């Protein structure tokens, strides 16, 4: 006897498989719920050109019904456009009911699963779905209701609906009470999420209150609401053959050339000529698409793929921008210095994609031998789990950071008190799972991320190189002081030389090593000039001062270095001492002061300026054999 085949609703499927959409543990449940509510708030604001101001509150309000959990209250309130009361049940209680599904836009939410899953989790663990209060600009009073998911029917059910006074023009407040556990720090922590979200949303003002923490406010640093790009026609290179053919059949009887021009972006009459040059039969171009054979499609598709086309429209992807990112990164803490990089849109995995990178060294984070903190973003949503499998992590590990002055073991994350933020934005990001925690990376995408990282790394290395030159000079000064006299005294003892020879040798040694010191000074000066040039370039491009702490100074940071270079005499030296506690106030001394303070080189000035000091190589090998 065959078993009865039953069909189940989408809601039933997800209710049984919530682990697939980010509810695999009590800790992840809290984070995912916050994330889904926050994403919706930001998307709604941006769609309506509203600068988002979001209040987040997470509290432990009791003991959870499940073993070893707390009852956690999560409230997210925004100043967005509000939701039409008729849509409330769909938005919060129905799976795959989304205004964004398949539109080809760079919104945070894509499918309409997340917030319904959060409602389901609340319902399953606390027997109550989401409490939502919302008000649109047209409403005098706000509507409040509890929305449950009708799991059998994949429908939202509105309960306890009421109207209330709310003294804001428009907005939405969502409240969940779920079984969960609160984790603040670490990769999967709430604070990491908050920091990440703040970083990539410079236009966001956020008020948040997390357990065991005081209420905090992070003000916006940009008053420009990012324009959500409108959905554009697909780019021919973003399609696979099957998709291409299906797309064609939607156009019915139109000629193939017309289909190409109207069905895709970046295809013009000129492009069609290029197709012909590359082997597409002219006759085919006049044929109605309905009458084309599979082989004809294949041939045409191959020609299109091998023809170089203009890159996809930059309007189909969205960037935070280097200027906004520069300002935003300073909100994360006391930044020593940083570099940002926004790449031009490229095609990877058949999709337009933009990679942005921000690298910053912080004064109050981690140690020199700890791995950097990597913040990953997909469409401006922080990715916090399964780091090792992510394309972003792979790209970071594949870069040789030692070349930029950072410590790194082979194929690992680099070391140091840095935050690396890597954002990938694309209308269609390929994730490894439905919970959108890991970007699935093709070689193309990893290479694109890698390039962005390397460009940002080069900028960063200017800062690091300046520091290493300073350390080099410091070390050389120490060497002269410490080893010079010991060397001479040892030689004098072995040879039994008189005091007069000793004095002459000491003088000679000072001259020699003084030349080396001047070489090191020149190298430092060169590094400073290059850094100053970078800063000047950034200033022209409108990017803030990359010396995080220097930016708060009166001179605007880089100006000091430029002045020093013009002067040609004084070399500014930022001491790293007291780095952790001494925020925003780099102590500066001139190197000449440092040298004279040591009183070690009275003879340096006497050396002829034209003396060419040899390169400071310690050990060289020479083959004398002809």
């Amino acid at each position, binding site marked *: 006897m065959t078993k009865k085949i039953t069909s189940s609703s989408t809601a039933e499927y997800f209710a049984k498989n919530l682990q697939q959409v980010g509810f695999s543990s009590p800790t992840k449940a809290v984070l995912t719920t916050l994330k889904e509510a926050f994403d919706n708030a930001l998307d709604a604001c941006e769609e309506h050109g509203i600068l988002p101001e979001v209040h987040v509150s997470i509290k432990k309000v009791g003991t959870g019904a499940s073993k070893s959990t707390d009852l956690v209250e999560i409230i997210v309130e925004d100043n967005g456009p509000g939701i039409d009361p008729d849509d409330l049940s769909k938005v919060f209680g129905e799976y795959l009911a989304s205004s964004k599904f398949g539109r080809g836009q760079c919104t945070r939410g894509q499918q309409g699963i997340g917030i319904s899953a959060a409602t389901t989790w609340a319902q399953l663990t606390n027997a109550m779905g989401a409490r939502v209060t919302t008000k649109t600009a047209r409403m005098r009073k706000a509507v409040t209701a509890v929305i449950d998911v009708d799991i059998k029917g994949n429908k939202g059910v509105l309960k306890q609906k009421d109207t209330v006074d709310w003294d804001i023009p428009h907005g939405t407040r969502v409240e969940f009470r779920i079984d969960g556990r609160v984790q603040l720090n670490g990769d999967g922590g709430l604070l990491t999420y908050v920091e990440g979200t703040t970083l990539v949303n410079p236009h966001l003002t956020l008020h948040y209150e997390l357990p065991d923490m005081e209420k905090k406010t992070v003000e916006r640093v940009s008053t420009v609401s990012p324009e959500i790009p409108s959905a554009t026609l697909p780019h021919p290179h973003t399609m696979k053959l099957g998709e291409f053919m299906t797309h064609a059949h939607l156009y019915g009887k139109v000629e193939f050339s017309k289909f190409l021009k109207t069905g895709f972006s970046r295809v013009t009459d000129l492009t069609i000529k290029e197709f012909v040059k590359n082997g597409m039969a002219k006759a085919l171009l006049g044929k109605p698409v309905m009458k084309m054979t599979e082989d004809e499609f294949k041939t045409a598709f191959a020609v299109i793929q091998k023809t170089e086309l203009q890159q996809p429209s930059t309007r189909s992807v969205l960037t935070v921008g280097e200027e906004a990112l520069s300002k935003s990164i300073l909100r994360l803490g006391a930044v020593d210095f940083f570099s940002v990089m926004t790449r031009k849109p490229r095609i990877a995995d058949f999709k337009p994609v933009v990679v942005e990178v921000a690298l910053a060294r912080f004064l109050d984070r981690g140690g020199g031998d700890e791995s950097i903190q990597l913040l990953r973003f997909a469409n401006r949503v922080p990715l916090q789990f399964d780091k090792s499998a992510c394309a972003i992590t792979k790209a970071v590990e594949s870069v040789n950071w030692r070349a930029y002055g950072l410590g790194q073991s082979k194929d690992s994350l680099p070391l140091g008190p840095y935050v690396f933020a890597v954002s990938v934005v694309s209308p269609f990001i390929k994730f490894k799972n439905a919970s959108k925690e890991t970007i699935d990376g093709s070689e193309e995408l990893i290479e694109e991320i890698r390039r962005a990282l390397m460009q940002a790394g080069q900028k960063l290395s200017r800062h690091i190189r300046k520091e290493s030159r300073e350390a080099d000079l410091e070390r*050389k000064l120490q060497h002269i002081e410490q080893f010079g006299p010991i060397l001479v005294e040892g*030689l004098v003892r*072995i040879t039994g*030389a008189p005091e007069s020879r000793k004095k002459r040798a000491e003088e*000679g040694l000072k001259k020699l090593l003084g030349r080396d*010191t001047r070489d090191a000074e020149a190298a430092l000066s060169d590094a400073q000039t290059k850094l100053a040039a970078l800063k000047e370039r950034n200033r022209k491009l409108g990017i803030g001062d990359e010396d995080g702490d220097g930016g708060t100074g009166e001179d605007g940071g880089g100006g000091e270095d430029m002045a020093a270079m013009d002067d040609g005499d004084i070399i500014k030296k930022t001491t790293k001492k007291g780095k952790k506690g001494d925020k925003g106030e780099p102590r500066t001394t001139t190197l000449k002061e440092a040298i004279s303070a040591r009183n070690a080189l009275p003879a340096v000035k006497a050396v002829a300026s034209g003396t060419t000091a040899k390169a400071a190589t310690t050990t060289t090998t020479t083959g004398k054999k002809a």
Partner: protein
Amino acid sequence: MTDKIIRIRNLTKDIPKEAKLLCDAVLKELENANRPVLEAVKCSLDNSEYDPKVGFLTPGDKRVRTELNVSSVQKMARVIFLLEILLQNLKSGMVNTKRELYYIAKGQVKSTPKLKPLDFADQDESDSIVDFIGDMMEVYREELNCFANDRGGQTYSQQLVVTETLSDGSTATIDLSTLGTSPFQPKNKPQALKLKARKKIDFCLVVESEGTAGTLVANGMTKRHNCIVMGAQGVPSNGVRGWCKLIQNQLKVPIYFFGDLDAYTMQNIFRTLKAGSAASLIRNADFSAPEVRFLGVLPEDVKKYDLHCYQVRENDQAEARSLKKAKDALANDPFFQDKKNRRLAAILEWLVKNKLRCEQQALFSVNPKDPLMCEKIIVDKIKAGSFV
């Protein structure tokens, strides 16, 4: 006192005098504000030469130059610091190991705060300076009264008589046949020993494993055959290398090496015993025995006796490194590149190609019921000329 130290070779150099001249030259350069340069023989494979007539690796013309600058001033100061300690040892006739020298240096730094910048963080730092001084002056470290720990070289024989000249000029005679089960172990100044055979010695067998050498002796090999059996105990120490050289020169008996069939044994153990090493180019003349032959285990023995082999595990770091080194040796080592040693190179090639290794103890599997089987095979191989 200096004369009482047993000399390893007839060195015409007056080390204290040469050291003083060198320091004087450095001082003079400093007085003239010129950069002094310390030069030493470059002891590495890329500066190794092999002449089959000479039989061991000799240094080429490459030199390591250390020119004074802010980066090298620390090394130079350390060289002069340790040289002074060594010269004092030469003067007083005291000897030390490298580890002891490390602690002497630490002691001096402790008692003289001004010297603190010279302090060595670990022994590797002071060792490299001692080696540099030896290479710079082209003298053995033993000639600077710095001796290494004695390891390996446990020797058994019923015919061998050793006469040792002691530092006070007296002599001691050791008849190895009277030592019972105890071995004779040479010090690392074997040149102070005179060898004599009570009866004609047919061969000397150097066994890689000290344990297997002990087994062969315990089972009566030295009683049944007029031979010398010696345990190398892994990579031969200077003591073992000098001792083999001495046996080769003074007794003029054929020497056979018996060890594992693997790249490590061929390159690190056998090549070092026969031709010296790249790291000790200036001392290979007195610390290698070019006449020593590779008795096995040979690839043909594996086939002939159906010996158990292990597959080289390429995911094992040590084994993978050894295999890579073997490939490098075939490409760069002048010893294996010389046509005189082409049969040894062929063994390395076989190892690289087949990725197998066979241990010397595998001979005990040939006839497990016969405890003398290993000895019989060794003797048969010598008689049959089955060696390289």
